[in-house]
């Protein structure tokens, strides 16, 4: 019954999406506004239908309807209820449904917000969005349906893999998938601009918030993924340059480049072709991400078994690339830049180089991901590239990006005077030198390490000083105390200072990455109760094992005492054996952040024996806590930047305009 309802809903949704995609473009071409209105209604109808289908699946989960294959695969009767929800997107069919739901809901918001304000673009935006939606619905209806039934109906399900029964897993996949999907919206506007020839800045302004939203979702998705890997997987790290991680970060790099380069087009009418290319690339990288994850063409730790939907995604990718690049070619004459670059010492030039570096990172990472396929085609043999490749190539590029990030905040638009630039730089350079020297004193030796620390410190101080200077100016102008002025900075120019807060976050994350990758201590050891081992500055003593039985699982807990020069604490890493998953005991990692060093003491129990012997993998990871702090600032900054500005009334504007006019003029045109 549930299966029939769900299947029917998805099929009607498919028909509605197809109708809307065609009606919208016909309505625009034949000038029949009623058709476009009906297409808008189709967008809303598709969202409602897909939402109902999702609710139907949810209902099947909650009622333990094991007549559905998907429910059997993802849940058991004993599964705690929050993980019934992660079962929703835990498998292929469900994640496709989640995906099309997200896209349908976002599309609905798009038509509601932009239908009146962007009359010329919207019919084509609807067509593009519904075409993407139709593709997902084809796959859901005809290839991989979550409403497939199984007979005879089993009494209980197989259940979600225990590794995924973790709070991080409740939010990481939805965020990342939502990020993938929200890239579709600026892409749809870009394509609509190309089709209509309305290639002025309107499509950029209309999608400014959408692009930032996509960037935010992608940031959150990747950060949560790293957090989950670090806290759950137990290999002591948060990023392994695995193919699936790479394809998740690729659209993030593209969107990061895009949110910078659109500023250049908005202000100076330059980089028009570049922006189109970036958004096309970002969207196709998002599709490529799904393709890689779902096709099984690459050996990854995340490898989903080879599934039959790979070729469909590949076909979709090919069509979308060919169509969008052809459209771009046809419009090239209209995309001529209105201005030229005035000087290398200008913000637009730093944005251009930031973009070139980001594109280089994208190309390198993409090359690494497809290298096994490439070498197979050329040499007839698959060659895999591992983390050292990415570290050696992307490391220096990212370092240059961080340095450029600091530099970019210093130079003004159009043309900067070198003297004015260096006048304000002295304190910054002294500060960066102090931090770098401190790092050398604390043990940094290799030139790369020292250079990286210097670059991050430089960027961090530049960003902080930007806040400080503006706060001082506001304090004087508005006669407010300093802390209030510091907050007022965000009200003053939300988009810019939100962005600078992101820069602060990036610089802090950079320091954390340097700390945890260059100064990590690790040791694998097997101990009997009473034995102890030294790792870095810490001594770890093993005290013994205990076993607990809980409903649905059995825990084995090791008790360890960790000491350093001035403190000691107990930790208890565990192995948990879940019912139905006896062959896969799950390690519960312990991570204890030690202050004031900000070392993470990270211990995994690898195995244990009958006699109480247990083997452990022990890491001391310095500064990882700053990674999460930097990540939180990055997300907060992105959120501030994204937050829609209140419509500023002209009466309040002059007051702000008096404040050190040049420095404080908002660089955004409020829309």
């Amino acid at each position, binding site marked *: 019954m549930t299966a029939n309802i769900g299947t029917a809903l998805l099929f009607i949704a498919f028909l509605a999406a197809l109708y809307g995609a065609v009606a919208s473009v016909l309505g625009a071409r034949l000038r029949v506004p009623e058709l476009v209105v009906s297409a808008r209604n189709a967008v809303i109808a598709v969202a409602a239908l897909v939402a109902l289908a999702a609710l139907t699946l949810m209902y099947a989960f909650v009622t333990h309807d094991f007549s559905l294959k998907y429910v059997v695969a993802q849940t058991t009767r004993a599964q705690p209820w929050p993980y019934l929800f992660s079962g929703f997107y835990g498998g292929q069919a469900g994640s496709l449904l989640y995906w099309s739901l997200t896209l349908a809901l976002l599309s609905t918001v798009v038509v509601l917000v932009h239908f009146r304000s962007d009359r010329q673009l919207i019919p084509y935006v609807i067509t593009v969005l519904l075409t993407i939606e139709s593709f997902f619905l084809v796959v859901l209806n005809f290839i991989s349906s979550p409403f497939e039934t199984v007979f005879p109906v089993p009494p209980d399900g197989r259940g979600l893999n225990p590794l995924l029964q973790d709070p991080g897993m409740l939010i990481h996949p939805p965020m990342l998938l939502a990020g993938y999907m929200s890239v579709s919206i600026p892409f749809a506007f870009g394509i609509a601009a190309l089709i209509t020839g309305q290639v002025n800045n309107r499509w950029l302004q209309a999608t400014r918030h959408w692009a930032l939203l996509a960037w935010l979702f992608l940031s959150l998705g990747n950060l949560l993924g790293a957090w989950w890997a670090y806290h759950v997987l137990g*290999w002591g790290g948060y990023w392994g340059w695995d193919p699936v991680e790479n394809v998740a970060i690729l659209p993030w790099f593209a969107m990061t480049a895009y949110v910078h380069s659109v500023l250049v087009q908005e202000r100076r009418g330059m980089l028009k072709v570049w922006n189109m290319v970036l958004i096309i690339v970002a969207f196709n990288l998002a599709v490529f991400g799904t393709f890689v994850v779902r096709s099984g063409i690459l*050996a990854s*730790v995340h490898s989903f078994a080879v599934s039959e939907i790979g070729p469909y995604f590949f076909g979709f990718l090919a069509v979308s690339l060919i169509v969008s690049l052809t459209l771009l070619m046809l419009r090239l004459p209209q995309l001529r830049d209105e201005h030229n670059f005035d000087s290398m010492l200008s913000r637009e030039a730093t944005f*251009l180089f930031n973009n070139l570096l980001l594109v280089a990172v994208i190309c390198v990472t993409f090359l690494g991901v497809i290298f096994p396929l490439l070498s197979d085609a050329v040499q007839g043999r698959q060659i895999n*590239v591992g983390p050292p490749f990415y570290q050696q190539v992307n490391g220096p590029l990212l370092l240059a990006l961080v340095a450029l990030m600091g530099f970019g905040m210093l130079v003004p638009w159009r043309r900067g005077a070198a003297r004015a630039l260096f006048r304000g730089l002295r304190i910054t350079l002294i500060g960066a030198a102090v931090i770098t020297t401190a790092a050398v004193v604390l043990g940094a030796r290799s030139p790369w390490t020292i250079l990286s620390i210097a670059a991050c410190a430089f960027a961090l101080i530049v960003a902080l000083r930007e806040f400080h200077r503006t706060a001082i100016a506001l304090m004087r102008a508005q006669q407010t105390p300093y802390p209030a002025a510091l907050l007022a900075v965000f009200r003053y120019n939300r988009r810019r200072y939100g962005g600078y807060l992101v820069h602060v976050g990036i610089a802090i994350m950079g320091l954390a990455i340097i700390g945890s990758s260059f100064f990590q201590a690790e040791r694998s050891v097997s101990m009997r109760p009473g034995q102890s081992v030294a790792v870095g500055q810490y001594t770890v003593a093993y005290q013994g094992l205990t076993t607990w039985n809980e409903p649905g699982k059995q825990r084995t807990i090791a008790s360890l005492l960790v000491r350093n020069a001035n403190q000691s604490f107990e930790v208890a890493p565990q192995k948990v054996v879940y019912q139905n998953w006896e062959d896969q005991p799950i390690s519960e990692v312990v991570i204890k952040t030690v202050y004031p060093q900000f070392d993470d003491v990270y211990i995994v129990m690898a195995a244990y024996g009958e006699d109480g012997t247990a083997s452990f993998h022990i890491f001391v990871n310095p500064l990882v806590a700053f990674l999460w702090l930097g990540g939180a600032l990055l997300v907060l900054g992105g959120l501030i930047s994204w937050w829609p500005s209140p419509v500023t009334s002209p009466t309040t504007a002059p007051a702000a305009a008096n404040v050190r006019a040049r420095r404080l003029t908002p660089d955004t045109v409020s829309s």
Partner: protein
Amino acid sequence: MAEDVVVARAGGSSRRAFDVKIIVGGIVILLAVAYLVVAALPAGTAYYLTVSELADMGERAQTQQTRVSGNVVPGTIVRSADSQDIRFQVEDESGRLTVMYSGVVPDIFGDHTQVVVEGTLGEDGIYSAEVLLAKCPSRFEEAVPTGSEYTEPG
């Protein structure tokens, strides 16, 4: 009008001067990236081989980093009592290979598990793996990241 022409020309020439700088900057980045890629490729690469292809490589398999995938032969897993060393055999269509590995074993590793090992062949014919990736074969579809990934060198 005449003034416009002059201005345009001035803009044009400064544009050219600047475009050269941009192009030079772009080329510098391109060369740097190319250099980095070429320099890093030997370090980061591993050949995907079958068990018999590995045997055919002869002595070169002792220095060249390789990747072999196969299923763990049931009953061959031997864990050492006092360390994290583990020894097992993997099997593909072309043959069997004995593998030594030291480090955290993925949670889903066990008999019949499909694994990918990366490392070099020892003189004694035992494959010494630095990386052990495991996939779970028991389910139609899987979202199982394993416990062991590359541990970044300190």
